[in-house]
């Protein structure tokens, strides 16, 4: 919301600097995002009186002497056609800054500093300026649009700074308005706050007008859908004389970024900027049948708007119709058929309240956003709807561009536009703040805000202005008080009335936090990836058509297709992270991510999907292999006091022979393996990568396994190394299992060597294990150990045909 200082000053006396006002507005809830002077780039330009002016032979140039009062008299060369002795122009002195223009003298190309120059051998001490060179347009200053020198008034004091004279010393406040204060989406709305925060009187804009006896026979307004249009005011203006608006109005519109079109249209835009009420003017001649009907459009009804765009409406679109059909897209834009033209003789002004959500939907659905729709989306209040019509009619009279007729229609649902009474307890107002604001301060503040306060004991009687739709209860009054009283008055306390609570992490939170730390200690870095990914990632990972991973929840309005479905696996994001790292030259690394996978019970979604806590680990680099990753899995198992077993698997994107599923207590809890060569090539991976996913939601039930101390055995553990010869296809895990089964004193079986080749037969291999025996109540004597080993070897032979290596 842009508010020019000069415009604000029309309603309130501002005796502080723009910077001070910025601070004040900030402290009461209006952040000035940008504060800048209209002529911030212009300096050193003064009123110059051309005393002599002679043309330089064979050129279009003139050699002039320019009197700049206290600054001196200068010889200046000038190429403009309207330079003439006895006239006053802006003179940029040597050292001044003005805008540089292109050859067309219109396009601004930057800011330049004026230097002493020489043209055709004639020295020039300064430059006479055009409007464009000072950043002015015809709307900002009458005459500034001329492609030549800007002519200054005859009474301009010679030598004076031109900035105040041309309005270049004005300031623009670009203010962020929070969604609860639609009443401040206007210059006058801001002025109200300025008056309150400065403690100054607020001057209301003039609203008086004098309706003639002219009446539009048989005219009527019908609002069929009052749920979308609770108030519709129409007023006729006859004897319209379309023309240009006065300079002051054009300048103000230009300052807030609106183009001047014609007096009638400018009045509607001026009221929008001034009061925040979008208005519309229909050419009366084109209102067929003399009636206005506000209704929902019929399905596929068509309207062509002012900008000659055709829109197909539906039952959710509110439109303004005459006897025959739509003449405006309510709250968004008028129709081309009833547009104000140069020939318009009478107009119907519209000031209405349309419901914000409907306008927003229409604006979104049609992809059409206008100043009016943007304003309606924020919400307008009926107090302002009524006020705006009066203001527009006043302006018609002030500009003398028409005769306000008698015909006035106000269709409403009976909503009051009067201030409404409210009573609050002063103690409660203070209870929100935690401090005692003196009652006379509260009264003073509420008075400045226009709430007509009266304090009686603890009760504060207020009249809530109709435009303050945000005020509902005493906390709202607390906020009004403190934002004006100052938040610096709040005294910090430490929950002084609150009960003590235990606080802290749950078992699950503690476990997962510690697990993350454990993984860091294993050399892994934690990653965080988006919760959504691309459908193409499902193909990248080669999931089968009926794989559960393909059952992903879709985002209805994704940013793009690559971020359009919720993750059903964390592997894709991890692979892309590895891909990016390798592209950046990080050829080895370790990452993990703990995040949710989303599992829909049904699609489209009718209930919350399951969010399954999942751990994904990714390793890459020449020093890692399947077993480094398996080691991490075992570290996790050890941490959780559980055991993992691996079984060969067929995870689609992994190496077919380095591909395993992880089981815990017979339940599949994840997978791990080496990324297959096809995927490596697709991702341009230079080094091998290994991926593991563990479903933590399945492991959560083990988080509460208690930690128990086992007494240290009385007798030392004993170890025996066994080198065994077996068929090649026998798995390590099979051997381990047999050894463990054969003797109950075996507490650990650890493979330490695998050997193939002579003298071992070609179809066989040798595996060497260290077997650890933990004694019970009796010592493990060499004789007993020999017996155990014998038993183990016998069982190995019997079950797997394994021999001791000679």
């Amino acid at each position, binding site marked *: 919301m842009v508010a020019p200082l000069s415009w604000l000053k029309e309603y309130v006396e501002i005796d502080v600097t723009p910077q001070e006002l910025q601070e004040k507005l*900030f*402290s*009461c809830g209006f952040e000035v995002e940008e504060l800048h002077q209209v002529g911030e780039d212009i300096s050193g330009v003064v009123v110059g009186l051309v005393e002599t002016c002679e043309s330089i032979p064979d050129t279009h140039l003139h050699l002039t002497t320019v009197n700049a009062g206290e600054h001196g008299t200068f010889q200046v060369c000038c190429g403009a056609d309207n330079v003439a002795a006895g006239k006053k122009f802006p003179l940029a002195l040597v050292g001044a800054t003005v805008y540089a223009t292109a050859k067309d003298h219109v396009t601004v190309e930057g800011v330049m500093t004026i230097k002493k120059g020489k043209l055709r051998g004639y020295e020039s001490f300064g430059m006479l300026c055009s409007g464009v060179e000072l950043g002015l347009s015809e709307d900002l200053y009458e005459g500034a649009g001329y492609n030549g020198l800007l002519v200054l008034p005859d009474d301009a004091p010679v030598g004076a700074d031109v900035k105040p004279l041309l309005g270049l010393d004005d300031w623009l406040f670009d203010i962020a308005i*929070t*969604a*609860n204060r639609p009443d401040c989406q206007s210059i006058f709305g801001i002025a109200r706050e300025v008056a309150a925060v400065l403690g100054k009187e607020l001057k209301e804009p003039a609203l008086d007008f004098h309706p003639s006896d002219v009446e539009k026979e048989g005219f009527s307004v019908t609002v069929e859908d009052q749920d979308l249009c609770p108030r519709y005011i129409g007023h006729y203006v006859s004897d319209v004389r379309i023309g240009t608006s006065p300079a002051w109005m054009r300048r103000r519109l230009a300052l807030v970024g609106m183009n001047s079109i014609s007096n009638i249209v400018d009045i509607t835009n001026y009221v929008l900027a001034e009061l925040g009420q979008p208005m519309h003017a229909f050419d009366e001649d084109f209102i067929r049948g003399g009636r206005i009907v506000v209704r929902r459009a019929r399905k596929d009804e068509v309207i062509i708007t002012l900008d000659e765009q055709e829109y197909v409406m539906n039952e959710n679109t509110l439109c303004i119709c005459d006897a025959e059909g739509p003449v405006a897209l309510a709250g968004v834009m008028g129709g081309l058929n009833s547009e104000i033209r140069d020939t318009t003789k009478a107009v119907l002004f519209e000031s209405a309240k349309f419901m914000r*959500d409907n306008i*927003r939907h229409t604006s979104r659905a049609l992809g059409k956003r206008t100043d009016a729709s943007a304003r309606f989306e*924020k*919400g307008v209040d009926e107090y302002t709807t009524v006020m705006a019509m009066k203001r527009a009619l006043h302006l018609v009279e002030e500009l003398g561009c028409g005769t306000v007729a008698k015909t006035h229609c106000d269709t409403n649902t009976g909503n009051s536009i009067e201030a409404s009474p409210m009573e609050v307890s002063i103690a409660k107002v203070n*209870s*929100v*703040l*935690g401090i005692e604001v003196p009652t006379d301060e509260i009264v003073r503040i509420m008075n400045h805000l226009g709430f007509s306060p009266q304090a009686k004991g603890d009760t504060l009687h207020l009249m809530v202005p109709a435009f303050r739709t945000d005020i509902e*209860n005493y*906390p*709202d009054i*607390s*906020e009004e008080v*403190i*934002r004006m009283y100052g*938040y*610096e008055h*709040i*005294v*910090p*306390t*430490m*929950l002084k*009335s*609150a009960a003590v*609570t*235990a*606080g*802290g*992490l*749950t078992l699950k*939170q503690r476990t997962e936090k510690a697990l993350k*730390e454990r993984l860091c200690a294993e*050399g892994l*870095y*934690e990653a965080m*990836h*988006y*919760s959504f990914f691309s459908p193409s990632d499902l193909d990248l990972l080669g999931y089968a058509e009926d794989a559960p991973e393909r059952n992903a*929840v*879709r*985002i*209805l309005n994704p940013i793009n297709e690559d*971020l359009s479905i*919720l993750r059903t696996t964390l592997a894709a994001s991890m692979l892309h*992270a590895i891909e990016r*790292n390798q592209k*950046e030259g*990080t050829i080895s*690394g370790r*990452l993990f991510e703990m995040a*949710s996978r989303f599992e829909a019970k049904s699609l489209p979604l009718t209930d*919350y999907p399951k*969010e399954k806590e999942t751990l994904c680990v990714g390793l890459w680099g020449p020093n890692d292999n399947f077993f480094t990753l398996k080691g991490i899995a075992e570290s996790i198992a050890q941490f959780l006091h559980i055991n993992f077993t691996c079984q060969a698997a067929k995870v689609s994107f992994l190496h077919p022979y380095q591909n395993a599923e992880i089981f815990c207590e017979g339940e599949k809890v994840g997978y791990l393996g080496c990324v297959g060569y096809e995927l490596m090539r697709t991702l341009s991976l230079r080094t091998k990568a290994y991926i593991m996913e563990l479903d933590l939601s399945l492991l959560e039930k083990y988080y509460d396994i208690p930690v128990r101390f086992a007494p240290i055995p009385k007798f030392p553990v004993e170890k025996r190394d066994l080198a065994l010869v077996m068929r090649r296809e026998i798995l390590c895990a099979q051997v381990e299992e047999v050894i463990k089964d054969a003797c109950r004193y075996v507490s650990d079986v650890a493979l330490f060597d695998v050997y193939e080749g002579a003298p071992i037969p070609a179809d066989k291999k040798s595996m060497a294990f260290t077997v650890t025996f933990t004694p019970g109540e009796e010592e493990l004597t060499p004789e007993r150990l020999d017996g155990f080993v014998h038993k183990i070897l016998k069982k190995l032979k019997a079950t797997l045909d394994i021999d001791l290596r000679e």
Partner: protein
Amino acid sequence: MANLFELQKKIAAVREQIETESKDLTDSKMVYEMRKVFLDKTGKVGQLMRYMKDVDPSQRAEFGKTVNELKNWALDYFGSLDEKMRKAELQRVYKSEQIDITMPAHTHVQGNLHPVTQVRNQLIDVFSGMGFEIYEGTEVENDYYNFTALNTPKDHPARDMQDTFYLSPEFVLRTQTSSAQIHVMENEKPPIKILSPGKVFRSDDDATHSPMFSQMEGLVVDKGITLGDLQGMLDVFVKKVFGQETRTRLRPSYFPFTEPSVEVDVSCFECGGTGCSFCKHTGWIEVLGAGIVNRKVLENCGIDPDVYSGLAFGIGIERVAMLKYGINNIKQLFESDLRVLNQINDR
């Protein structure tokens, strides 16, 4: 009969021989060998005893004593010589094992928690010390919990403040962790103190916005909660996270679910509040939004707003991490570049 004087000369000669020959010894092994030559049973000292039979019986005691003295002297002599040699030898060993202590250490690579997790843990530490429990909501949220119950009905303009990802007409990716407030208040009775960290989503993807980021919602509901309590608690938080010198400033703002609503700024920890490029010369940095829980939100959850009141705050975790560690691009937090992740190791 041998003359005792003559014999004593012999004894002195042995001692002299020891003293002379030991000068050439260079290590403990040579000391040992020489000691053997003189002090073994058949050694040169022992052999002096052979002259005993030649000594006049009246002088034998004297002779024996002298030989013994020599023996004791030699024991000490070789003992100290041995010690000296061993010391010298150790010095040689030490010298031979001299290393270049500036050579690189052998390290075990440790990873880091994600910067967001590090900040999240710091925040949890601060607030769990104040009695906050941690409640983690879901990323997919019902429209009711994300908006309606938070006093943001369907037509509310505040919905425009957040571009929402819809999964169905009813379900969204939550736009704020504030939705957790409602779940907690529906299921627990005051006193309530919860902290709800988690991922949130907005349909915003440009240089300074990420479609996913993390928030941490704080909620206190009890009797007599005030704005003063909000500031007091946040003062503790910012001092612990940004340093003891940090101050807070409240200024009015708007959120549908709090009234009054405030933005909380902290004094710039780069310049201490005097103004610098880091704080855009304002001396203050915006870190979070907060306020007194709107009465309607309490009512929506079946909590009597005439008995209880509450405060709530929402912190952008990435923002805190970026401010604290000087990370200037939020996107870098989600790209898993090890060159980024290995730099951030905070406590």
